């Protein structure tokens, strides 16, 4: 087991190098730092001095890959590639365009993201499973058909509609909770309720339908027929046998998401004014702060890879037939 985990961690290194190279090429080869400086400073009437100053302030004034002016190791280390890309591997994220420490920002903003994403995951799982179980229980009846049609309808509505109408209905008309904002500690609760509700409603369409197919697939299997042949009631068959087995694909599908919860949700956080990592990314994109976007790409891929490894490990826990080697 331990050997397997170590090997998986080693496999992650080439992937991270690949991610690093892709972002490096996107951000520094497609457009030179000069282009970006011109972009940031306004397209016209930019003096070369202003561009040089902008680059020097942010450390973009070095050669991209190979510094001929230096000696020894500095040939490689005193370059943009080393300073901006390779440093990410040791979690030195550098500074944003407005001079703030990115690592510190990420640490600060991680928790609001988690406070929104975790309830969404847990309650979403519960509601989706409940809905799917009900539909599976009443399968091939009018309740099932009507339920599936409702789910398809819910699924076809844009997520932006849920957010906007949720804010309008609950926040503006009924004045139950504030429309947007965030607070520390328990006071945050009233800001969390609405985004979570909106996300639940949005997720129920695709989630409920997907879990329903998983349940129906399980119901068609031989062990269910055996259980029925023993004379067990439909309720016991569903809740004790089918639910347990259907949890394997459901749980393993959830595990891969766990690390990504820290990343938060882009639009949800930005609409509800939550100072999490999702709105951090959106703000960075709008302000064209490439340093932050670059770091977030890297952090996101690390979290995704951790999720993949956790998924593999979780298989062994829920299904003893699977052994990692």
């Amino acid at each position, binding site marked *: 087991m331990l050997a397997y985990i170590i090997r998986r961690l080693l496999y992650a290194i080439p992937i991270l190098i690949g991610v690093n190279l892709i972002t490096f090429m996107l951000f520094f080869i497609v457009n030179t730092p000069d282009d970006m400086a011109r972009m940031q400073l306004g397209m016209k009437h930019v003096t070369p001095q202003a561009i040089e100053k902008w680059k020097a302030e942010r450390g973009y004034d070095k050669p991209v890959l190979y510094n001929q002016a230096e000696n020894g190791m500095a040939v490689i280390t005193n370059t943009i590639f080393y300073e901006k890309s390779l440093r990410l591997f040791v979690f030195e994220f550098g500074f944003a365009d407005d001079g703030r420490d990115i690592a510190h920002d990420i640490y600060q903003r991680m928790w609001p993201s988690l406070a929104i994403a975790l309830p969404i995951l847990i309650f979403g799982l519960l509601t989706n499973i409940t809905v799917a179980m009900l539909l599976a229980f009443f399968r091939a009846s009018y309740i099932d058909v009507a339920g599936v049609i409702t789910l398809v309808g819910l699924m076809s509505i844009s997520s932006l509609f849920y957010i906007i109408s949720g804010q309008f209905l609950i926040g503006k008309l009924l004045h139950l909770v504030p429309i947007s904002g965030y607070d520390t500690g328990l006071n945050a609760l009233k800001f969390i309720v609405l985004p979570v509700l909106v996300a639940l409603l949005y997720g129920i369409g695709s989630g409920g339908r997907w879990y329903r197919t998983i349940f129906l697939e399980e119901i068609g299997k031989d062990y269910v027929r055996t259980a029925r042949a023993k004379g067990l009631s439909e309720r016991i068959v569903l809740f004790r046998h089918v639910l347990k087995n259907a949890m394997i694909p459901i749980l393993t599908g959830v595990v891969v998401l766990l690390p990504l919860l820290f990343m938060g949700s882009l639009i949800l956080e930005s609409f509800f004014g939550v100072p999490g990592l999702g709105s951090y*990314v959106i703000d960075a994109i709008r302000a064209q702060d490439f340093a932050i976007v670059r770091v*977030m790409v890297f952090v996101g891929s690390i979290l995704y890879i951790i999720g993949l490894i956790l998924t593999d490990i979780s298989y062994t826990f829920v299904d003893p037939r699977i052994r990692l080697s």
Partner: protein
Amino acid sequence: MLAENIAYFSSLKPVLLWTDALVFILAIVIIGFAWYAHGKEYLQAPWRKVFTSRTGMVSVVVIAVYTTVALLDSIHVREALENKGDQEEIYYSVNVISFLDLALGPLKNQAEKTYSAPFATHLYAKETVELPGGANIRLYPRLKYGGAHLENPVQDKSRDIMVRGLSGLTAGLLLWVILVACFIWKLARYDRAGFMMTFKNILHGRCRAPWHVMLLTTGMILALIAMVISLAGHYHIFGTDKVGQDVLYQTIKSIRTALVIGTLTTLVMLPFALMLGIMAGYFRGWIDDLIQYLYTTLNSIPGVLLIASFILMLQVYIDTHPDLFDTDASRADMRLLFLCIILGVTSWTGLCRLLRGETMKMRTAEFIQAASAFGVRHSRIMSRHLLPNVMHIVLITVVLDFSGLVLAEAVLSYVGVGVDPSMHSWGNMINSARLEMARDPMVWWSLLAAFVFMFILVLAANLFSDAVRDAFDPRVKNR
């Protein structure tokens, strides 16, 4: 009149944008496939099953209407400028317009000053108007076009709307009855049955295809379109936006953007996913490792971030190279094309993995072994033996992805990395209307129009994809 029209059309200069070309290639491929499948039972059988599904066929009708609009909107031209003096050379306007713009002429040009509510005759904001006597008064001014024909808007408006709406409805229904009669007559001749007999069969749903629901949907759409046509010339049905442009016009123009993103994205990614997926599954070994590495790496970057970085970089490139694009439309089009490409890059990995798995299962099958025993080349085995056997997976994925991509466009435009802000799209409409939510009284019509049009398209696509999956997926047979 006719000569005038011909002269006008011949003065237009056709413009072929990149996405236009791809849209037409796609249309030709689909028509070509239908031609090829003609008379080949094994290709037709699953499609025939799709054609028996009621919800599937209703959505086909809806999607067909959207597609027609999008195709009309994909034929772009530039109008000739009026020739001042006796210059030999003809200059063309920098505004690229489409055939749809020509058809929607009044909608496009009847711009008001600023916001106005649906069916309004007055502006939504008070304005200071100078009276003849020199005094100023603040009131809601009349609209330039919306309800301009009414003498006394407060009294006559509802009656006028009713009359116009009903006359449009009647015209639409009449047209529908004629069309249905023609259709039944044609079908009766094809089946060599009597007219009334065929009519009864359709009415009771006893035909192979669910004609009755399809005809009903067509009737509803025709009636709606006719009503809109009879009203739209005199009112702003969905109101106007901040700069006074008709919202209905914007929503209709957005259809092309959504369909282009939904279809071209999958078209762009398809060759890579097919080639790499089948190669990985067929060759195994280091090729498999390499391809797996490739898609795991791409997959591990969060999708929105990859799209964002790509589009940001593209925008920098476009802004620093303004000389590459002769019109605004071609610049916006380039961004749309690259958005499709990058969306394709982030979404091909799923299909690639599915294809790899399926090919791996199949490579030990007897017909593949037989082929390699006969000395058939690898490339030929993959293209002639493996490819046709995985096409159902491709089709299901492509159709399933469509609705997700249409929804994704709105979100991406909100984030600021969607289509060009100058391009009409539902995402841009929602994004610009979002700020008006805080206004009191609220400006809701832009949002509503965008959401309704998007919802209808996505719902139809979802229902259609269900029908396609039921017909093509061997696992859901007989459930």
